C-alpha cells in the first residue's frame, strides 16, 4: 500500500514533495463526488463525512476513504483512473476482522489519516474519536487489513490528547489528529486540532521506526497568536502554495476552510495569518440545518468541514476534498408554484418562531451565567434559580404558542410536500433529512 500521489505530500510535506505546485489558491466551483449518478452521501449515518485519500490496494489508483458519524470508514474506488468524480462502493476498512471503528456520538466524523508510523514499510492509519477524543492507531497488516485499534500514548503511557492533564474526562472530546514531520527529522509528529478550534503539536521524540511521543503539547501559533478557527479544527499539512514548505489547512465547525501559510523554515515552521479558502456555510440563510431548497436550488458545502488535500485529478496541483454535514427538507418533485409559495411562507414563519425562542433561551443562559459566574454556576443556588427561570420561560406565551399551536401547524403544513423525512415523529426536527457529502474543489 503506497500512496502514489499528493497524499504523500500531505503526510510528510517538504520531505518528499516532488510535484510541481502552483502558488495560486483559487479553487473551482465545488462538485460532489458520486457513485454512478448518485452523490456520495453519509446522511444515513448522520453525515459528518470525513474524506481521506490513500492507495489501499497498491494498484496506483488511490481510493477515497470516507469516515462519518458512525465511526466507521467507507471505501470508494474510482470508476476509472481518469475520472476523479465517479466511484464504486468497495466496502469498509477492516481492522482485526471487523469494520474498523472509533466511538462517535456527537458533532464530528471519524477522520482517517494514513501514514507509516512504525516505519515498517506498511501503511497504517490513525483516526480521531469523539469519546474519549484520543488518537487511535490502526497498524497496517499489509493486506488491506489493519490491526485492532490501540490508543496512542506518550512516553509516560498517558493517551496522546489535546488536554494533557484533564480535570474532566470530556476535555479532549472531539479532537482531530493529522501526521506531520514538524521538525524535519523524518518521523511523524502529530497535529492536534481541538474541539474549540485551536491547534496543538505533539512531537515524536522517537525515530521513523520507533515512535515515542512527548508528554506535552505545544500550542501552534499563526501570526503571533494562537492558531484558531471557529471551532472543530480539522487540520491537514500540505504544501498548498508549492514553496517547498508544508502549510496547514483546516476545516471548521462553520464549514469554512482556512489556509495558514508556512513562512518559517523546514525545521522551524512558522505560520502567517489564516486565509479563507472556503467561506463559512450559508445556504438558504440557514446555519446548516433545515435547509429548504425550492426552484431547483442546489446544495452548497455544509457545516463541520473535515478535509483532505491531495492532487485528486492528477493535474499536478493540490486539490481540496471537503466532507460536510447539513439537514435539509426533501421536497416532492414537481411542486406547483402555489405549493412552493406555501412552503416559502411556512419556512419563513418557522425561522421567525425559532429565532424568538432561541433568543429567549440565549438570554436565559446569559443571565444565569452572569448571575452565577465561574464555579458559582455549579452551586445549589444556581441550580434552583435556573430551574425557576427556565420554568418561567417554558410557561411563557411565546413557548406555549410555539409548542401547542405553531409547531403542530408547521409540521402539518410541510409534511404533505415532503418526499421523505428523517424520522417519523411529529416534531419539526423529525422532518429534514441529514446529509454528509464529499465535495471536490479542483485547483484552478
Amino acid at each position, binding site marked *: 500500500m503506497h500512496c502514489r500521489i499528493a497524499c504523500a505530500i500531505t503526510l510528510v510535506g517538504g520531505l518528499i514533495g516532488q510535484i510541481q505546485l502552483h502558488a495560486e489558491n483559487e479553487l473551482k466551483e465545488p462538485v460532489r463526488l458520486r457513485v454512478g449518478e448518485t452523490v456520495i452521501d453519509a446522511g444515513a449515518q448522520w453525515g459528518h463525512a470525513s474524506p481521506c485519500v490513500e492507495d489501499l490496494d497498491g494498484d496506483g489508483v488511490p481510493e477515497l476513504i470516507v469516515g462519518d458519524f458512525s465511526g466507521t470508514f467507507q471505501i470508494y474506488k474510482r470508476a476509472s483512473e481518469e475520472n476523479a468524480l465517479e466511484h464504486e462502493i468497495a466496502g469498509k476498512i477492516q481492522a482485526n476482522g471487523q469494520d474498523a471503528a472509533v466511538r462517535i456520538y456527537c458533532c464530528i466524523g471519524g477522520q482517517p489519516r494514513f501514514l507509516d508510523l512504525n516505519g515498517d514499510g506498511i501503511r497504517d492509519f490513525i483516526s480521531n474519536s469523539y469519546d474519549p477524543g484520543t488518537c487511535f492507531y490502526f497498524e497496517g497488516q499489509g493486506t488491506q487489513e489493519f490491526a485492532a485499534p490501540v490508543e496512542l500514548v506518550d512516553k509516560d503511557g498517558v493517551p496522546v490528547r489535546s488536554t494533557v492533564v484533564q480535570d474532566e474526562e470530556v476535555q479532549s472530546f472531539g479532537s482531530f489528529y493529522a501526521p506531520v514531520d514538524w521538525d524535519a527529522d523524518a518521523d511523524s509528529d502529530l497535529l492536534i486540532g481541538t474541539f474549540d478550534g485551536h491547534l496543538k503539536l505533539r512531537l515524536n521524540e522517537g525515530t521513523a521506526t520507533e515512535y515515542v511521543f512527548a508528554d506535552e503539547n505545544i500550542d501552534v501559533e499563526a501570526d503571533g497568536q494562537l492558531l484558531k478557527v471557529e471551532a472543530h479544527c480539522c487540520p491537514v499539512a500540505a504544501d498548498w502554495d508549492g514553496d517547498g514548505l508544508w502549510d496547514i489547512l483546516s476545516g471548521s465547525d462553520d464549514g469554512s476552510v482556512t489556509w495558514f501559510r508556512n513562512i518559517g523554515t523546514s525545521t522551524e515552521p512558522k505560520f502567517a495569518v489564516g486565509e479563507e479558502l472556503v467561506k463559512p456555510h450559508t445556504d438558504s440563510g440557514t446555519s446548516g440545518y433545515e435547509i429548504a431548497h425550492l426552484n431547483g436550488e442546489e446544495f452548497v458545502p455544509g457545516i463541520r468541514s473535515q478535509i483532505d488535500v491531495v492532487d485528486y485529478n492528477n493535474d499536478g496541483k493540490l486539490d481540496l476534498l471537503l466532507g460536510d454535514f447539513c439537514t435539509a427538507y426533501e421536497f416532492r418533485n414537481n411542486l406547483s408554484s402555489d405549493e412552493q409559495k406555501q412552503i416559502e411562507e411556512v419556512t419563513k414563519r418557522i425561522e421567525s418562531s425559532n429565532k424568538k425562542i432561541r433568543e429567549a433561551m440565549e438570554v436565559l443562559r446569559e443571565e444565569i451565567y452572569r448571575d*452565577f459566574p465561574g464555579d458559582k454556576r455549579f452551586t445549589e443556588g444556581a441550580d434552583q434559580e435556573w*430551574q425557576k427561570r427556565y420554568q418561567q420561560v417554558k410557561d411563557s406565551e411565546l413557548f406555549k404558542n410555539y409548542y401547542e399551536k405553531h409547531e403542530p401547524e408547521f409540521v402539518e403544513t410541510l409534511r404533505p410536500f415532503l418526499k421523505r423525512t428523517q424520522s417519523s415523529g411529529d416534531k419539526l426536527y423529525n422532518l429534514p433529512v441529514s446529509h454528509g457529502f464529499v465535495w471536490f474543489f479542483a485547483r484552478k
Partner: protein
Amino acid sequence: MVMLLTFIVSGCSPPASVNEPVVNETESPQEPVPFQTETNTNQVKIILACDRQQVHAGEKLPLFVKFIIRPGWEIQSLSAPPPMIATKIELELPDGFALESEWQEPQATLSASPDGHSVYAGTATFEGVVLIEEGRAAADVEIKADITFQACDEKKCLPPETVSMVLPVRVGE
C-alpha cells in the same frame, strides 16, 4: 447514592406523612425507609419517587422520575430519534406489578443546539402509574429503574449514562 429526602417531586400530591420519617416496621423500627431515592451525576440529578410507601393489592401507585438538569445542560426526549440518545426509563417491577400505560412526558423544548431537536432542560418530571394486581400477597418489595440519558449543552454531548435506582415499597395486608 440513595437517601431519604423531603418529597419534592412536582405535580404530585405529597403524602400525609411528608414531614415524618417513614418507618419500616418489620425490619428495623429505627431505620427510615425511603419512598424517594436520588442519584447525582455531573449535570443531572435524578429522583425516583412514589407518593406513598405502602400499597395494597388492586391499588394504583403513581410513580415519578424527576430530572433536575443543571444550568446550560439538557437531555433528550423519550422519543428522540437516532443518532440522539433518547432518554429511557426501564422498570423492573415485582411480580404482580405492571406499568399501566406509557410514561407521561412533560413538554419538551427546543435544544440550544442549532438543529432545534426536542429536549428537556431545567426540570422534567415523567409520570407513570403502576397497577398492583388483585390478590398480590403482602410483602416488602423493590421497584427497580434503569434510567438512561445523555446530557448535552449547546456545543457538545457527554457520554450516555445509565443509572440504576431502587425504591422499596410495601404491599400491605
